[in-house]
């Protein structure tokens, strides 16, 4: 099983074998985090540019750490304080960066399809670190790695994804990945935040939190983006928290005792997740973050490690 793609744009593009190659590679690379000297020379002489047009803590930092642990040179670009404020267009900025011969450009942008545009226009490898409401493949991969480590397998697991499904690139990437690995997915949320086409992705839909979390192996809570309230999609944060917030009491009454609670971050404590659930024994939220570095190492290694160069 080889890796032949120039870019990583969407879980939808990958087949089960490619997803497993990424997850397996990431699982093996986790050991580097436990070393005294957290550095291996695999990507020595390679350049990775983080091109971030949207705010990010976890994703950008973990791509940076991943690149550095593999000995790549990592350059961070953020839209604030760059020529973007002088009116340079996205594609012009990207072409200018590509002219400096990076091996991998990691891009996050508010427009769906931004990463695919760069993949078409630029000769280097492109990693989608979140494009609009489209996909966020490395988040799905780290979620999958976390699930497999806790549950031991993928086939037959049932996952509930709860919250703003319509605007969530994390949900979309996870749904594509999980379906390909033989998992069952139920999405749940207020009807205004469930997209109309969602059944076409092969998922079940629930309109009550209690129904969604019964008998599932994993509950993935999504962040409620506050701007959705302004858009009139939910009446108030308080009402959302009352109907869709995961509390300890709801968990105890409706979910299985061995359920995993996941969240892609950042958490709105007291809205979608009660603090005692976020910090509780079911929660693997910080484990997800740690896995993020391993997954991003695997992505960078497979995109930049197996090609180019003269092999010294």
């Amino acid at each position, binding site marked *: 099983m080889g890796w032949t793609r120039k870019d990583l744009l969407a879980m939808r593009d990958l087949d089960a074998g490619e997803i497993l190659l990424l997850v397996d590679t990431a699982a093996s690379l986790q050991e580097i985090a436990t070393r005294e000297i957290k550095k291996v020379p695999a990507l020595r002489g390679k350049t990775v540019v983080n091109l971030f047009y949207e705010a990010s803590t976890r994703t950008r930092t973990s791509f940076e750490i991943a690149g550095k642990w593999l000995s790549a040179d990592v350059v961070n670009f953020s839209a604030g304080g760059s020529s973007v404020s002088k009116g340079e267009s996205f594609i012009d900025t990207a072409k200018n960066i590509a002219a400096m011969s990076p091996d991998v450009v990691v891009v996050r942008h508010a427009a769906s399809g931004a990463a695919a545009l760069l993949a078409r226009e630029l000769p280097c490898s492109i990693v989608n670190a979140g494009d609009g409401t489209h996909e966020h493949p490395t988040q799905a991969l780290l979620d999958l790695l976390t699930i497999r480590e806790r549950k031991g397998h993928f086939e037959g697991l049932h996952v509930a994804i709860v919250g703003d499904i319509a605007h969530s690139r994390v949900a979309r990437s996870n749904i594509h990945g999980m379906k390909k690995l033989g998992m069952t997915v139920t999405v749940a949320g207020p009807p205004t935040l469930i997209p109309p086409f969602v059944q076409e992705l092969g998922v079940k839909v629930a309109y009550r939190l209690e129904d969604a979390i019964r008998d599932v192996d994993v509950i993935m809570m999504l962040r409620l983006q506050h701007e959705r309230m302004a858009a009139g999609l939910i009446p108030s944060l308080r009402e959302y928290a009352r109907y869709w917030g995961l509390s300890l009491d709801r968990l105890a009454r409706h979910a299985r005792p061995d359920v995993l609670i996941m969240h892609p971050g950042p958490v709105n404590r007291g809205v979608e997740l009660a603090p005692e659930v976020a910090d509780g024994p079911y929660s693997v939220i910080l484990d997800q973050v740690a896995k993020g570095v391993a997954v991003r190492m695997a992505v960078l290694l497979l995109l930049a490690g*197996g090609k180019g160069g003269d*092999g010294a």
Partner: protein
Amino acid sequence: MSSPARPSREKAQVLDEAALDRALTRIAHEILERNGGAADLAFVGLRTRGITLAHRLAAKIARIDGAALPVGTLDITLYRDDLAMRGTPVIRGTDIPFSIKGKTVVLVDDVLFTGRTIRAALDAIIDLGRPTAIQLACLIDRGHRELPIRPDYVGKNLPTSRRESVAVRLREHDGEDRVVIEEPEEA
């Protein structure tokens, strides 16, 4: 390292099961003799067959000396100098669950050839800590070194031509214990 992608045929058998076992027994004795016993020794096997050989050497030393030596496994993929030429890197992980600081590490590989794998392994080990010494044991030394590296313990020196390959077959992986020389099938 030992099996080429081209179809190949067996040219000669180099070691049979008994000879392979005798070679490992001799190496185990040499390791104990050279180091004056088993104190502070540890084995690190190189994926994949080096690991199996390291476990067999550790078992022999346990039988001779009674010492239970730790055995770690090393994946040197991330340290290869030809990573870019080999297609998809397959990472299977390093697992050395003991501190190598202050230990004499005996690195174990099945076939010693150009020396580049060992060069990568030395870098990988030194990134994990500072051992007192690193020694090298290999079942077959087939020559053609490209780097100034020599083994401390050798099962058998085997002059080969570059177009041949050496296949070490072990019970745990291949269902039999023997070493053969293979050469590419003529077109």
